[in-house]
């Protein structure tokens, strides 16, 4: 299992601390909210259609606050599943 070694470069702790890297699947799941809210603005930045009385771009952003939580929940499940599988090996 791949681990990253983090060391505080300020130098007061010379023992390296090993922390695990996030898995590729979790990173891809984390990328989804970025694509939806940040990298695709021109696709959804419009007023019509109004949904629940909200302009479409406002509704889109509010919807993705909820959907981002779902993405991060899925990423969490991926990490937990990997930890459970990896704990016997390590």
């Amino acid at each position: 299992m791949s681990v990253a070694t983090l060391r505080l470069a300020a130098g007061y702790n010379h023992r390296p601390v090993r922390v695990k890297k996030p898995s590729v699947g979790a990173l891809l799941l984390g990328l989804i909210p970025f694509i939806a809210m940040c990298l695709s603005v021109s696709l959804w930045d419009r007023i019509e259609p109004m949904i629940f009385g909200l302009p479409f771009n406002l509704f889109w952003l509010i919807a993705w606050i909820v959907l981002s939580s779902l993405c991060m929940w899925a990423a969490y499940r991926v990490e937990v599943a990997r930890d459970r599988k990896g704990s016997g090996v390590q």
Partner: protein
Amino acid sequence: MSPSAVSLTTIFVIVAMGVAIGFLAGVHRKMDLEQWTVGGRGFGAVLMFLLIAGEVYTTFAFLGASGWAYSRGGPTLYIMAYLTLAYVVSFFILPQIWEVGYRSSRELADASNRRARARRARMISSADGQTIENRCSVRAESA
């Protein structure tokens, strides 16, 4: 009493109360550096929750954002996007920072406490903590 006098009085009363409580708390017990910086690592869950909530919901959330939306309109929509995406980044970064803090089990002042024996250096590093923290970059290398 004019509004500005009311607000100034409120601020000074709160500051004076905070200082008085702080001094009274230290009168009867001997405090070391750990107690001063992180409350002797004895903050309860409720106090931690309130502190974190106070960190997250800043004045910007209540006054800044709404006032800005009132004066500027549409562009303030970005607030919802950047706050959400900030937590996505935190999901990957914060556990690792926690891990480093837990394993090395040291606050910044603790670290300088062990590293620099001199009392004056310790005091300076506590006062100047933010600067040192900023210089403290976390370097990652593969193992």
